[in-house]
């Protein structure tokens, strides 16, 4: 909604990053017993956000063509620990710990977004 504001842009970035990271963690946990499966994870938010916030072309005329925006925020990287005899290196406790971290980041992003939008509402003279 407020993409031009740096604060909400970053909050939106963190929220979508958290969603993407949770999807990868869910995949790891679902494959916790699959032979030869390697655990994945996203790079940390700072480097993922740098990739998102880079300069992008703007279409100022209808006949300008834009490169399609990348579908995912960042490419997943391998992040497994010690490997089980069947070639699987997912550690469920580590994944649960990461999912709690993701949850906290997501809540924080939504809280920032909520308070920014309430400041904007107040400045427009509406309550809340």
């Amino acid at each position, binding site marked *: 909604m407020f993409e031009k504001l740096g604060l909400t842009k970053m909050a939106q970035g963190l929220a979508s990053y958290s969603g993407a990271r949770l999807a990868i963690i869910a995949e790891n946990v679902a494959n916790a017993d699959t*032979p030869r499966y390697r655990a994945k994870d996203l790079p940390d938010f700072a480097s993922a956000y740098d990739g998102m916030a880079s300069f992008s072309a703007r279409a100022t005329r209808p006949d300008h063509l834009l490169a399609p925006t990348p579908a995912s925020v960042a490419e997943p990287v391998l992040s497994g620990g010690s490997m089980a005899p069947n070639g699987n290196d997912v550690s469920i406790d580590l994944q649960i710990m990461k999912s709690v971290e993701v949850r906290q980041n997501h809540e924080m992003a939504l809280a920032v977004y909520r308070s920014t939008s309430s400041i904007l509402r107040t400045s427009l003279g509406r309550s809340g």
Partner: protein
Amino acid sequence: MSDLLKSLGVSAAGMQAQATRLRHVSENIANVDTPGYHRKVTSFKVDGDGLLELAKVRLDRSDLENIYDPGHPLADETGHYAGSNVDLIIEIADAREAQRSYEANLKLFDQSRQMTQSLFELIRR
């Protein structure tokens, strides 16, 4: 948002696969005394959409247990008959592993649901 929905789907597929695995384990346990029963072995694979699913169920071709019971209807002239090759310890361990993985999937499913809900709270107010 679509990532959250995707993780809901991934966790649901994981729970489904673990539940089916637990069903095969309980079939093995139920047939521990069935003569000539080969235990079923389940393994997982990832399908085209990145979702977890059970690979084709195989039968464990290891030797059946040779039980001595001359009074058994299936006993041969030496008094032995072929039992099942189910090992209860292995089945219990397998069931425990299925339960543990199921609970982890359920936990992540619940978390994706809660995160989707808090996203909805943002537009509801």
